[in-house]
């Protein structure tokens, strides 16, 4: 519904919503192709981690957004996670449509210092988040359209 009438997208991100985080090679994937906790980290001094609301954006749009912010050849796919999982891990999800409609942020309650490690409990939280997420690789990342599996049912 919201993909056709995006203006009706509610501000509140419900627990049931699926969120897609663009994954870039090599920093977000292990040598064996699994998600790394770094995929859900924010830079120092910030608590927001960008995601796309799949209730509002199609995979093709998400992919176009991802390819627009990075160098060619680095986009690999999406980490898909439910808002409920994020909240159960202790973080939150908030709409941030000021960037573009369908954009949201995972917000952590821990703000990291530059060049100093996160508390171990926070790293353990990110590990749980990665475990609760599903990595959906794009079989053809160099193309403009999404050809991977259905993101809305990928968890």
């Amino acid at each position: 519904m919201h993909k056709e009438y995006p203006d009706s997208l509610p501000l509140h991100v419900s627990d049931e919503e699926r969120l897609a985080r663009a994954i870039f090679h090599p920093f977000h994937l292990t040598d064996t192709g699994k998600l790394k906790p770094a995929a859900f980290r924010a830079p120092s001094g910030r608590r927001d981690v960008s995601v796309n609301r799949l209730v509002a954006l199609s995979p093709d749009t998400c992919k176009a957004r991802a390819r627009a912010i990075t160098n060619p050849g680095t986009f690999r796919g999406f980490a898909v996670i439910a808002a409920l999982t994020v909240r159960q891990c202790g973080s939150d999800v908030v709409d941030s449509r000021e960037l573009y409609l369908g954009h949201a942020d995972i917000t952590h309650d821990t703000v990291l210092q530059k060049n100093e490690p996160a508390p171990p409990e926070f790293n353990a939280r990110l590990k749980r988040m990665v475990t609760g997420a599903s990595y959906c690789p794009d079989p053809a990342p160099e193309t403009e359209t999404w050809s991977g599996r259905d993101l809305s049912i990928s968890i």
Partner: protein
Amino acid sequence: MLMMPIEINQVDIEAQVSFAPQVCEYQIIVQGQRRSLEILMQCTPRGSASTLNQPNDRTAAWALLAELARLGPNWDAYGGEPIGGACVANARALLDALPPDIPSPEVTPNPNGTLTLDWATEDQALSLELGATRFSSFWESRHGIKTDDGTLGQGMPGFAARALAALFPSLAPPPSRYERLMIDAQGIPGFTAAACVG
């Protein structure tokens, strides 16, 4: 823990033997009819760890560190910050201090300019994040998650060293390397000569 024959006062007995690589210590339990006998025995294998196993090549890990040190602003497309020079130096120092038969870790840059070193086995994992002055670590052990953090000193933090010894117990020779354990009439433990390592 494995069952193996040992000789106590020239009598052959079946005993349960386990080995703690962190302290190079054997625990031997002899089950009797009315009570059991427990013996702790420390040993120093002849030959260094590098003679027991092939040294691990760190060349690739060092090259990766050099590459990560050159990451510029926004390296991850999400505003990632350059990796701190002190973080890279700390990672390099820990790699240099790793015992030869501990494999090189997977090295990951973090958006706040730190580095994470990861080791994993089939059933355990250790994650060690290094900053300019501090470390943060969590170990998914067989007994649950254990965490630690603190100020970086010389060498590997003790918590991480213990975790690595549990992940990679091959540092010490397994009991099977010894043909036979002996405990003489005075209760002094030893090995048969043919079973020496090194």
